[in-house]
């Protein structure tokens, strides 16, 4: 159940280039947040920017978490792109932030046979929502594909290293890993995996990436859950501003914030 409440900043630091990690103590949200869910942050008390901004929850620690310091905290890994995120970088420890969350339907974790290859594909800051998913899939062997424009856009590699995973990195300029897109890299590694139906995909990234991936998913028998990024008005289903076209029989435009952000990739009709 989403809650609107004030959280308190516990840390806010640059991790690399334009990427920052914001830690907020906010027990009611941290306690119930699931992989793939997001929060709406009121960046400024002022009217500029006016709307809240959506951020996927990178890490959340319930009150029962053994390490006392982290209990009730949630972390947002964000990219500074515009005015709102620039203002976020100035948030200081002890300051209050108005949050709504956790929002949306997160990733579904169906019981999969141990022979299934679980493949995670993240583009740019999209990898952030796959990190808590990997945590939830602990114990399973994962194949993780991480892509970005340059080496500076490759995030969270260390997170996946602690799990039993094979990590593949692609950058568009070739400054780290294979040159090309993360979807190209995944395609080139296809033969590593067993038959299509024994693969289960999770993806998050920009529209272009998901579109390219959708083409591959369509040609094969992959099941893929994809988390979508969208411009949002409210984040909790009231305005119908963040819709995406789907094959839903009645309501073709579904809300990314409410019915999503995670959808079955083959249900999305790309325009």
């Amino acid at each position, binding site marked *: *159940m*989403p*809650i*609107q409440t004030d959280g308190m900043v516990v840390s806010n630091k640059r991790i690399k280039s334009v990427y920052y990690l914001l830690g907020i103590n906010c027990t009611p949200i941290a306690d119930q947040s699931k992989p793939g869910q997001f929060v709406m942050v*009121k960046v400024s008390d002022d*009217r*500029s*920017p*006016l*709307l*809240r901004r959506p951020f996927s929850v990178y890490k959340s620690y319930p009150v029962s978490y053994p390490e006392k310091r982290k209990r009730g905290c949630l972390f947002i890994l964000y990219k500074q792109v515009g005015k709102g995120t620039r203002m976020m970088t100035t948030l200081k420890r002890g300051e209050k932030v*108005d949050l*709504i969350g956790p929002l949306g339907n997160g990733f579904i974790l169906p019981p999969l046979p141990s022979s299934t290859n679980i493949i995670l594909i993240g583009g740019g800051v999209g990898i952030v929502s796959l990190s808590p998913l990997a945590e939830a899939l602990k114990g399973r062997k994962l194949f993780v594909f991480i892509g970005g424009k340059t080496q500076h856009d490759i995030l969270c590699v260390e997170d996946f290293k602690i799990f039993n995973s094979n990590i593949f990195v692609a950058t568009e300029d070739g400054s780290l890993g294979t040159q090309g897109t993360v979807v190209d890299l995944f395609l080139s590694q296809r033969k590593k995996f067993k038959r299509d139906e024994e693969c289960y995909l999770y993806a998050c990234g920009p529209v272009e990436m998901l579109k390219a991936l959708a083409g591959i998913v369509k040609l094969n028998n992959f099941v893929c859950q994809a988390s979508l990024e*969208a*411009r*949002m*008005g*409210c984040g*909790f*289903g*009231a*305005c*119908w*501003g*963040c*819709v*995406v*076209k789907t094959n839903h029989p*009645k*309501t*073709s*435009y579904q809300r990314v914030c*409410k019915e999503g952000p995670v959808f079955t990739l083959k249900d999305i009709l790309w*325009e």
Partner: protein
Amino acid sequence: MGITMPSIRNPDLSVTIGKIKLRNPVIVSSGTFGFGEEFEDFFDLNHLGAIISKGISLKPMKGNPPPRIFETEGGIINSIGLQNPGFQEFIKNKLPYYKDLKTHLIINFFGNTQKEYIELARRFDRIPGISGLEMNISCPNIKRGGIVFGTNPHMAYRLVQAVRKATTLTLIVKLSPNVTDIALMAKSAEDGGADAVSLVNTFRAMAVNIYTQKPELGNVIGGLSGPAIKPIALRMVWEVSQAVHIPIIGMGGIMNAEDAIEFILVGASAIQIGTANLIDPKTGIKVIHGIRKYLIRNKIGCIQKLIGTFG
């Protein structure tokens, strides 16, 4: 438990719009409050004066292609395109939730033709649990959506008159600001038999992305709302209040109680919260508390004594 009588310490916030007696003048606006249920996690909806549903048409509408929303300085431009499940689906799946609430439900509706407006008014008239109708003759986002009726005073008059005959429910006409003389439009609605007018809907607007050299909205044009439009909306409510005798429901960029009081002072009997619901879902409640505090501080025992007292 006795009934607390209104007094200077406990001011009377109730106002009357047509046949509807609202416990307070704060209404949440169509299209910014989903189907109500999206807000139940945030506060008790029963405290609101009234809730207005998302706009309902006879047949389902799929809405405009995304992107549908774009933030500008102090405002947002939207082009949702009146996406809604249509009358039947609304009655079956959305109305039951509203019926369990103790606050008033006002249905916002629109048609493509006069016949459709009349048909919808007639159908809603027979359904229990509905306190009133808000007729949308002002959506800027679809060619049909009523804007044709909303910009021509004679057509507006005829349409309101026809709908008036189809329902005994309180009839509110929602006006477009995209006209030369909004007072004339309000007068046409009054003459046609409207119980009240609500204004303003959004201002036709657009935004361009200079990097992609494309429009920011899938529909190119949308409607601007939010604090950016408040001064213009306020002027329009003031103009309308001098032209009509029926109650006015004022809206346009109301973010807090101070904004709401401005609208009341220039002649609004009630106000609607729109864009602010999306940013702070509890805005409605905060505005109610703020108005109450203002009345107490100024020793005004009854909000009706405040309506239109400016100047």
